[in-house]
């Protein structure tokens, strides 16, 4: 088959896998309250808000996801080199990463919550631990599996010279950076503060005054993933998928148009710059839209 077609197919699959991965990663961090909005969950009991959120941010999202995906990639790589089928090897590697993730989540949750028990009266709800750990590990498995698959495609079909574990580590760090930059905003500034009117940032004076009641009953991390799966999660997935797809597509486009090395690369560079320029224009349009639609706070 034509190598260009194979590259395009692999790129499409890698982009789709990355999209699922970004979405699952963000929703996992919402259930487990990892990364930036976790500062508010941590601050809650000190402000008198006893809550039933899971709380597991010991390190940042990029670093922890770098770890999980690198674990999965390393084991998959070793098994592939030992002769196992690639898909099976990636599944086994992601399974081990899920166990690592689960162990990390349990110790992180107990450590963080116990730290606030004596002084601020925050109870350690064991049912929160048992009910949240499944969705955390499950979402984490989907994120790690799809990302390791994307990394495998990058090394075998898309011409990346790095070994699978290194590409997996880089993808893990990248998806963590994207998830904590985009999806966490929806969980942090919107979901945690829904008792305040919609619109506007969270003033410093309100920080730690998180919502502890949901639409029905007491709120927990599972409610957060339900809420964020309608906007923050899918957009995070779209972001990572677009990055993987567009970054690969510009190189393949150069190869399709052809010519010598300098011509092909110049086309790839120009297409890349065009993508950034389009993003800048849409960003500006959104800014103008928000200024006209919401208006100033004070004149």
């Amino acid at each position, binding site marked *: 088959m034509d190598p260009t077609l194979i590259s395009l197919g692999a790129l499409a699959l890698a982009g789709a896998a990355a999209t699922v991965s970004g979405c699952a990663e963000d929703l996992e961090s919402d259930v487990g309250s990892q990364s*930036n909005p976790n500062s508010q969950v941590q601050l809650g009991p000190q402000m008198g808000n006893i809550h039933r959120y899971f709380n597991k941010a010991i390190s940042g999202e990029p670093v922890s996801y770098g770890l999980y995906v690198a674990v999965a990639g390393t084991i998959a790589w070793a098994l592939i080199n030992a002769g196992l089928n690639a898909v099976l090897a990636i599944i086994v590697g992601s399974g081990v990463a899920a166990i690592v993730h689960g162990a990390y989540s349990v110790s992180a949750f107990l450590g963080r919550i116990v730290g606030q028990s004596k002084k601020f009266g925050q109870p350690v709800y064991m049912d929160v631990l048992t009910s949240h750990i499944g969705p955390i590990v499950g979402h984490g498995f989907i994120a790690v599996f799809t990302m390791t698959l994307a990394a495998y495609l990058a090394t075998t079909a898309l011409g990346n010279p790095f070994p699978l574990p290194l590409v997996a580590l880089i993808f893990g760090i990248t998806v963590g950076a994207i998830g904590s930059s985009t*999806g966490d905003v929806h969980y*942090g500034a919107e979901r945690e503060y829904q008792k305040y009117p919609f619109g*506007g940032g969270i003033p410093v004076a309100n920080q730690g005054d998180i919502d502890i009641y949901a639409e029905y009953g007491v709120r927990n991390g599972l409610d957060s993933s339900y809420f964020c799966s309608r906007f923050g999660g899918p957009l995070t997935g779209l972001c990572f998928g677009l*990055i993987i797809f567009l970054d690969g597509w510009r190189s393949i486009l150069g190869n399709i148009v052809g010519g010598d090395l300098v011509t092909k690369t110049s086309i790839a560079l120009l297409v890349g710059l065009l993508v950034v320029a389009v993003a800048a224009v849409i960003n500006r349009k959104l800014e103008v839209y928000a200024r006209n639609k919401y208006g100033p*706070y004070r004149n």
Partner: protein
Amino acid sequence: MDATSFILPLAEITIAGAIINASVHFVPVGGAPAAMATSTGVGTGTTQLAAGAGFTGLLAAATMASQAGVSLANPVHMLLIMLSGAVGAMIMLGLTMLIGQIIYVYGIGIVPAADKCEKDPITGDIQKPYITPGTTGHGIPTVCFVSGSIGAALGGLGGALAYIALQQLGFAAAIAGVLAVGFFFMNAVLASYNIGGTIEGFHDPKFKKMPNGVIASFVSSLIAGAVLIGMAMGL
């Protein structure tokens, strides 16, 4: 290995470190406060965002460098590898800022506004009236987007230059990749000490501290380069 064959890589590594440090200062990072829409910028840590963009650039540069017919001795090819890295990093950060902006505007309902300038230096829009009282701005205004794009380009350029230098020292692609990742982190962390939390971009007063960070990275990269040359010589 004779002296002349490692002077050029040493110079490249040192310059690459200084460029990576400078690049981080351009990236609009608001950390946890930005995730709460309490400060302007992208809602994650300085090192992590810069690393995420830089590594995407590194992957693009490595893919370019491994193409048939590329010679690291050819200055045109070196330039193409570095530009590939720069554009790869720009795509990553540009799309992250754009999707973040969509969530800020539609999911949170805020007006993107910068706190560190009266008027956006690029569009001329007045900023202060649009900032929620009790916060120091929010979202990704145009000046931050432009500054971030410049930072990403520099980060990708620096990462790619370090990768080229490591390959010129004789490291295989895999080892050069691992070392480049570590080297990038080292300089991004140094820059984040200089920034100390949040920065909006080149219009932020903290940006004036950049020369200190660049000097620190220059010195540390020189030492790291000497160690890497030792490794390449098998010491």
